[in-house]
C-alpha cells in the first residue's frame, strides 16, 4: 500500500481541505456561521468541561461503550475469518447517529442557539436529533424527503412523538439530497437563531471534520476492545458508506495501523450497470454538491443524478470528502453490494445471530459474507453494525407482500 498519510491534526487543513476534497462551497450568508461554528468547535474541542459533558452523556444517556461482539454462529456459517460486530445498534435510539447529535446539541447550547434543524434519510439521524432536542429543551425541525417518509413511516412518528416538527420535502428525488438542500435553505434563512445539525461527514467545513471527531469514539472503543479480546488488531474493517460517518468513525482510530485494511461498502441498488444505485466511487467523479468537493453521481453537465437504494440512509449522490481523500491516497477501498445482497444479509444476521440489522448496516454484512469465507480462520474481520433494523421491518414486510 502506497500511502502518504499526514498526521491527523493537519487533516483537514485550514480551508477544510482533505487533499483536493472538502472546502466550503456555500452561499455567503452561511459563511459567517460556518466560521463561527469552526471557532466554537475549536474551543470546545480543547475545553475539558465540554469534553467531560460529552463523555457523561455518551456514557449515561447513549449507553457507551457499545459492545464488540464475537459473532460465533455467523463466523461458523461463513467458515473463514473470525467476525466481530461493533454494536452501534445498541446505542440509545438505535444507531451511531446519536454520537454526533449529542456533540452538536451541546455545541448548539454553547452557542446559545435555541433552535436546531436537521435532515434525515433513513430517519435515524432525525430521531437522534429529535431525541437530543427533547433532552436539551431545544426547538427542533427535521427535513425529510417525502419518498423517505413513506419508507420510514415509523421513524417519522417517533420524531413527532419526541416533539419535533417533521417537514416533508417534495422536490427532486424526494430523498436525502433534497432534504439537505431544504435544511440548508432553512439555515440560510434562520441562521441567527438556528444551528444545523448535519448528520453525516458531508457539507462544508467544519462539518466533515467535526462529525468525524464525534463519531471517532466508535473506532477508539473498537480498537481497545479487539486488543483486549484477541491481543491484536483486526485484519480488516468493513462499514457501509452513505455519507460515511459510521465508516469514518470506525476507521479513524486505525488509520495509522498500516496492516489494517479498510473497506467501505456503498449501495449497489439494482446493480451498478443498471444506473440505479448510489455507488459514487464506481459510477461518479469529483464535483461540488451541498458545500463540499467530493465524488458525486452526476452527468456530463454536472447535474446530479438520481440515486437508488433499498436503504434510505445510503441513497445519496455524494460521499464524505474525507473518504474521497483516503481512497485517493490508497488507505481505504470501496465496493458495493446490491439491494438483494443486502436483503439476504439482513435475513442472515437475524437468523444466525438474533440481530436484525438496519438495511444500511446489512450492506456491510453482505460484503463480509463475500469476503469472510476467502479469509483464513485466524484472520479477524471487524464490521460496524451501525444501526438496528426495527425501522426497516415494515418496509421489508411490504416488499415481501406481507401487510402488518
Amino acid at each position, binding site marked *: 500500500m502506497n500511502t502518504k498519510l499526514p498526521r491527523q491534526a493537519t487533516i483537514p487543513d485550514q*480551508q477544510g481541505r482533505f487533499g*483536493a*476534497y472538502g*472546502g*466550503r*462551497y*456555500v*452561499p*455567503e*450568508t*452561511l*459563511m*459567517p*456561521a460556518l466560521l463561527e461554528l469552526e471557532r466554537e468547535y475549536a474551543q470546545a474541542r480543547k475545553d475539558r468541561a465540554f469534553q467531560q459533558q460529552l463523555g457523561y452523556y455518551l456514557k449515561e444517556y447513549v449507553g457507551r461503550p457499545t459492545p464488540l461482539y464475537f459473532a460465533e454462529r455467523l463466523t461458523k456459517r461463513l467458515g473463514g475469518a473470525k467476525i466481530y460486530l461493533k454494536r452501534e445498534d445498541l446505542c440509545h435510539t438505535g444507531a451511531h447517529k446519536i454520537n454526533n447529535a449529542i456533540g452538536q446539541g451541546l455545541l448548539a447550547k454553547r452557542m446559545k442557539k435555541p433552535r436546531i434543524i436537521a435532515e434525515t434519510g433513513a430517519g435515524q439521524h432525525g430521531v437522534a436529533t429529535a431525541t437530543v432536542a427533547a433532552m436539551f429543551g431545544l426547538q427542533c425541525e427535521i427535513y425529510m424527503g417525502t419518498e423517505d417518509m413513506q419508507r420510514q413511516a415509523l421513524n417519522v412518528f417517533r420524531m413527532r412523538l419526541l416533539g419535533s416538527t417533521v417537514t416533508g420535502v417534495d*422536490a*427532486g428525488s424526494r430523498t436525502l*439530497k*433534497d432534504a439537505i*438542500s431544504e435544511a*440548508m*435553505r432553512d439555515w*440560510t*434563512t*434562520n*441562521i*441567527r437563531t438556528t444551528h444545523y445539525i448535519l448528520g453525516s461527514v458531508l457539507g462544508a467545513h467544519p462539518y466533515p471534520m467535526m462529525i468525524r471527531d464525534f463519531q471517532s469514539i466508535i473506532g477508539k472503543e473498537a480498537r481497545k476492545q479487539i486488543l483486549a479480546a484477541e491481543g491484536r488488531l483486526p485484519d480488516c474493517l468493513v462499514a457501509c458508506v452513505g455519507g460515511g460517518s459510521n465508516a469514518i468513525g470506525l476507521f479513524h482510530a486505525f488509520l495509522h495501523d498500516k496492516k489494517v485494511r479498510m473497506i467501505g461498502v456503498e449501495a449497489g441498488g439494482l446493480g451498478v450497470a443498471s444506473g440505479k444505485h448510489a455507488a459514487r466511487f464506481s459510477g461518479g*467523479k*469529483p*464535483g*461540488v*454538491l*451541498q*458545500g463540499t*468537493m467530493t465524488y*458525486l453521481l*452526476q452527468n*456530463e*453537465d*454536472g*447535474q*446530479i443524478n438520481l440515486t437508488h437504494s433499498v436503504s434510505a440512509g445510503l441513497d445519496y449522490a455524494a460521499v464524505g470528502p474525507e473518504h474521497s481523500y483516503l481512497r*485517493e491516497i490508497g488507505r481505504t477501498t470501496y465496493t458495493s453490494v446490491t439491494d438483494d445482497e443486502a436483503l439476504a444479509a439482513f435475513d442472515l444476521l437475524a437468523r444466525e445471530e438474533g440481530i436484525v440489522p438496519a438495511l444500511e448496516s446489512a450492506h456491510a454484512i453482505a460484503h463480509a459474507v463475500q469476503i469472510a469465507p476467502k479469509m483464513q480462520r485466524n484472520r479477524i474481520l471487524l464490521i460496524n453494525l451501525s444501526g438496528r433494523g426495527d425501522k426497516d421491518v415494515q418496509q421489508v414486510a411490504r416488499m415481501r407482500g406481507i401487510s402488518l
Partner: protein
Amino acid sequence: MRSTGRHARASITHQSVRSTSRLDQTFERLKTNGEKALIAYLMAGDPGLAETEELVLALEKAGADIIELGVPFSDPIADGPVIQQAAERALRSGTSLRKILLMVAAIRTKSQIPLVLMAYYNSIHAYGPDRFCQDATAAGVDGLIVPDMPPDEAGPLRGPACASGLHLIFLLAPTSTAQRRAFVARESKGFVYYVSLTGITGAKLADMADVGTNVEKIRKLSDTPIAVGFGVATPQDAARLSRYADGVIVGSAIVRQIAAHQNGGMVSEVSNFVHALKTAMVPGTAP
C-alpha cells in the same frame, strides 16, 4: 484531480479581450445620467432557449440594463421554489451550459446588453474552469455569479477569469461581518451583489433601512457598483432599493411571470412588468 468534461467545445470564435467591459461601461453611463441599473434575471432555457433569447432582446427594449442568465442546476441550494421550478423546466427542455453559451453568442450578433451568468459551481467544474472562462468570454458573457462559491473557494476561476476579462461577481449578505465585507468588496469585479435578506431567492423583502445601512458600509470599502437583489417583487420595491444601490436585481418576480404565461403573451407580459420596474426606478417617479 482534474475535471474532464468531454463534451464538444462550443463553436465560438475567440475575440480579443475588451479593454473596458460592457458591464463597467453600463454602470458608468447610468451614473452619468443619474440612473440606476435594472438587472433582470431569466432562467436560461425556461421554457426553452429560443424563448430566453427572445426575452433578452425584448427586455432590453423594455428597459432592462443588464441581464442575468441563470444556468439551471439540479440542486440549487440558494434558490427558493420559484427558481427551483424554473430550473426544473429548463433542464426538461434540454438546457446545458454549452447550449447557453451558444445562445449568448447568437444574442451578441443582435445586442450588446451586458450579460451575467449565474451558475452553481458544479456546472462550471464539470465544464472545466479554464475552458469555461475562455468560452464564456468569447461568447460574449461579461460576468459570472456563483452563488455557492465564496471568494475563499474561487482559486481555480480567478486566474482564467482575469485572463479572459470575465468579471467574477461575489455576494455579501446581512450576516456578513466587517472582515467578510472588506474581503468580498475587494474581490468582487463588475459589481458587488448585496443580498437584501437573510434567506433564499424569492423570500419576503426585509427591512429597507437595514439594506441602506449595509450598502453604505460596502460603499466605504470599494468603488465597485453595488446591486441589491433577493426579494424584490414589485416596482415599489425596486424604486425604494434604487435609492440606496447602483442597481436592483429582480429574479423570482420575473420568473413567476414567465411561469404564469407559458401558454401565450409571455414576452409582452414580462416586458410590461420590466418596463414598470424600470419606470419606477427613474428618480422623481417613485411612489
